[in-house]
């Protein structure tokens, strides 16, 4: 696939159809891949990479890139196309300035996930059928691919591209994922258990803002938490209340717009399962207002900018959720 992508990029750069290419760049190790904009054939040949570690969602970069001179070629995975579509809907990306090439994805892993499986001192990696063979400082280690993927890929919602100008490789399907299983499990807990669970998770937050800054839905020019004049600007959670507030408000602000790409949980240095907050909103929206997948299209109204006179009353919440 990588060769096909480089060939496509060279072709489009050569013909002048685009003047830049948005993709992934190799790093020091096999897994530390950085999103990058390539402008020449030499750069592409030297550093362009597409492998099992290219997990970064590239769509958010297009907010800025699509406003620059000329057209940019963007390689987007199925996940990324949902975000791309959602940003189009919000008029954040200038569609005419982007040439989207859809690329297939079989799930992306990362160094952290491998290390959580007990792999130490990663030097290299190769794929053998359904497993990864990892060469480490302390010998070789074989991991089944299914075990070495992060949660977001194990509960992948779709391998289908929502938008593209051209597709490399075969098109995938929307999958019947089990992504709400954990949300349901938490809902079934008692309020005390839920409170303990979330305090345990959110109290680890160090307010690095990685979840917010990586999120394609968090595209505000100035976040309320960065705005001194807002009265609630926070650089650190000085009280547990602020941890709760930041995450509730952030999840709420992207409710109905979050495509569930899972970047927030991937980047969290403290491994807080932030996607479980977003998925709760997605699940509630599906239940209360009908099935809705953000990023599926660019025309319908989002659930929170829409209403129905017959909507459920907020009191429905009192009858729901968990043992007392």
């Amino acid at each position: 696939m990588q060769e096909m992508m480089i060939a496509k990029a060279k072709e489009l750069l050569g013909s002048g159809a685009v003047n830049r290419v948005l993709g992934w760049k190799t790093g020091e190790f096999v897994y530390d891949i950085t999103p990058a904009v390539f402008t020449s054939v030499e750069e592409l040949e030297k550093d362009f990479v597409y492998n099992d570690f290219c997990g970064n969602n590239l769509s958010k970069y297009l907010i800025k890139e699509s406003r620059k001179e000329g057209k940019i070629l963007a390689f987007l995975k199925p996940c990324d196309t949902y975000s791309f579509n959602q940003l189009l809907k919000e008029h954040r990306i200038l569609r005419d300035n982007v040439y989207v090439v859809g690329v297939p994805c079989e799930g992306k892993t990362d160094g952290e996930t491998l290390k959580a499986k007990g792999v130490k001192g990663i030097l290299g990696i190769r794929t053998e059928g359904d497993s990864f063979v990892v060469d480490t400082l302390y010998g070789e280690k074989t991991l089944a691919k299914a075990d070495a993927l992060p949660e977001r890929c194990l509960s992948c919602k779709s391998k289908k591209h929502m938008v593209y100008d051209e597709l490399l490789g075969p098109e995938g399907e929307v999958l019947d994922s089990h992504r709400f299983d954990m949300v349901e499990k938490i809902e079934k807990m008692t309020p005390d258990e839920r409170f303990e669970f979330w305090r345990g998770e959110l109290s680890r937050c160090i307010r690095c803002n990685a979840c917010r800054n990586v999120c394609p839905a968090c595209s505000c020019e100035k976040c309320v938490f960065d705005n001194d004049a807002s009265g609630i600007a926070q650089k650190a959670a000085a009280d547990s209340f602020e941890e709760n507030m930041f995450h509730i408000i952030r999840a709420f602000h992207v409710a109905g717009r979050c495509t569930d790409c899972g970047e927030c949980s991937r980047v969290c240095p403290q491994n807080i399962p932030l996607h479980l907050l977003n998925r709760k909103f997605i699940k509630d929206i599906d239940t209360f207002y009908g099935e809705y997948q953000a990023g599926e299209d660019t025309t319908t109204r989002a659930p929170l900018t829409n209403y129905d006179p017959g909507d459920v009353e907020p009191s429905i919440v009192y009858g729901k959720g968990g043992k007392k």
Partner: protein
Amino acid sequence: MQDVKTFKPKIVAFCCNWCSYAGADLAGTNRLNYPADVKIIRVPCSCRVNPMFILRAFQRGADGVILCGCHPGDCHYTTGNYYARRRMTLLFSMLDYLGIEKERTRVEWVSAAEGAKFAQTMNEFVEAVTKLGENKRLEDLRCKK
């Protein structure tokens, strides 16, 4: 938890200017009783209430927060309360998901003519929150010093 008999909850009530605030006014002119611990904040429309307002009220020491607006279909701005309804439904559900007592938050539709309903709603809400006791799960300790 504090003694239920002596504990008086602090309640913040966001009332829309056109219906519920007038409803509260009517409750007053009709000399209907409702607890003095209910602090009313007038907002132009129920949909003016950002989820942040609710959380901030809790941060600043509220034990319960109630939002009152025009009945669905009667919004002064035609549709504001429809949006508020969706937002609050999702927010309350999220609070519940985080293990924060859902009975501390409520939405009630009160028209300008429903002074009695306003007083009754407040009495019921204060009673429910009194039973829950002090807000411990969504408090900011710095504000309680």
